[in-house]
């Protein structure tokens, strides 16, 4: 708890928390505006109303979230490298893996809040704009959980990569390359491509229905766990000399 409160103090003026909130608000605004402008077109698609609500605007929301996570993880470690602050942390009686875990936790909670804001907007649209009796809160919550779970491998991967490079442009470049390669590999229905964390995050965006794919969920959980432990191990055992 003490490590978490210290980590939160360090975030001051970095912009990580406002950035993730802004991503949540932008995603919510995009969904609301999209339904105001394209409501009839969207509801005339040959899809169930809940599928329209959850899959047709998710692409843009997911890209916003992905770039939010990429930039936030770059910032959250760049502040450690900028004034060589991390070197001081190594010289203090503080657990470096705990510091890594707290950064992971802060970004996870911020992503949860971001997704929460976006799904609040989708719930509002579902209640007011979908044909009467077609809005299902359970489906919305399950898809929200699905999009959160599938976003976690990218978050874990980006924190891991950001913790390894002092130059912020390298993890940023890796993030952009991950996004582009993920876009190219997300459409084919080949399960093993899901070892690519960005493909996992893109999967709900290329699906045509709002039913979570359990194979993708399991892969997302495994990847998140593996990447988190890889980061913790590295933080404990490898030092920048």
């Amino acid at each position, binding site marked *: 708890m003490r490590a978490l409160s*210290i980590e939160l103090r360090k975030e001051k003026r970095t912009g990580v928390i406002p950035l993730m909130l802004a991503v949540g608000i932008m995603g919510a605004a995009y969904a609301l505006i999209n339904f105001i402008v394209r409501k009839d077109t969207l509801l005339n698609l040959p899809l169930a109303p809940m599928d329209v609500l959850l899959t047709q605007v998710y692409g843009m929301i997911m890209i916003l979230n992905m770039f939010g996570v990429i930039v936030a993880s770059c910032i959250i470690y760049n502040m450690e490298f900028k004034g060589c602050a991390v070197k001081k942390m*190594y*010289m203090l009686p*503080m657990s470096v893996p705990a510091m890594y875990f707290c950064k992971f936790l802060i970004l996870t909670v911020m992503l949860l809040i971001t997704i929460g804001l976006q799904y609040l907007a989708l719930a509002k649209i579902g209640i007011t704009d979908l044909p009467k009796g077609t809005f299902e809160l359970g489906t919305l919550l399950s898809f929200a959980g699905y999009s959160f779970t599938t976003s976690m491998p990218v978050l874990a991967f980006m924190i891991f990569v950001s913790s390894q490079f002092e130059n912020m442009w390298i993890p940023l470049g890796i993030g952009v390359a991950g996004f582009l390669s993920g876009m190219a590999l997300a459409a084919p229905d080949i399960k093993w491509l899901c070892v690519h964390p960005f493909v996992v995050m893109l999967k709900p965006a290329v699906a045509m229905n709002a039913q979570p794919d359990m194979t993708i969920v399991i892969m997302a959980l495994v990847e998140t766990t593996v990447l988190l432990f890889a980061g913790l191990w590295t933080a404990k055992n490898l030092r920048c000399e």
Partner: protein
Amino acid sequence: MNNYIIKTMQLTKKYKSFVAVNDVSLHIRKGSIYGFLGPNGAGKSTTMKMLLGLTAPTKGSFEIDGKQFPNDRLSILKEVGSFIESPSFYANLTGRENLDIIRRILGLPQNAVEEALELVGLSEFGSRLAKKYSLGMKQRLGLAGALIGRPPILILDEPTNGLDPSGIHEIRNLIKSLPDLYDCTILISSHMLSEIELMANDIGILNHGHLLFEGSLDGLRQNAMQSGFAADNLEDMFLSMVDKDNASRKQRAIL
């Protein structure tokens, strides 16, 4: 029984084929100021980094207050205030906020921050962002980070770098007064004997990773006289020691 608070035993650090520190055995007495002297690249910072667990020794070991890395890492770091190479700070935080982070990690009372700022003469600049500090102010902030909480052991790597002459004088006097004020032991490095001479009780001279001399300043003076140098000119003694070592090194390389 000796009263060495820091003791290294054949400490060695190799980076591939380059030997940065070679079989260095230091003996630092409790309550003393130990000057660690050597030209740039002699291995002073590497030795200090090993003592702080920033880099692992290739060979040898060391003890700090009877404790060893990595098993006692947290308990050693609780006792040691350090300042290595350049000052480390969070650029997005003010000087005061930077020290507050350290205070929280060390579990110190709130007044420790103001005390540390005052000690290094940064009180009036405490609310300024650390990234806007001048080099000298960053150096002072780094020192404050080492001194906060009055640790019993201080490891300071060229702490007066970047300070103006009056700043050097001020920090030198501060360091000199610390063992009496807080009953602490100081390991301080420099490449200038003239500076170390004004502060240290004991010194160790390092060149190309080798410890050329370890002992008291009086011991060095005697050594200087035996070698035909004036006892009041230790700088010449230090330079000739280093030159002699460099020459024998070249000779060995030719052979």
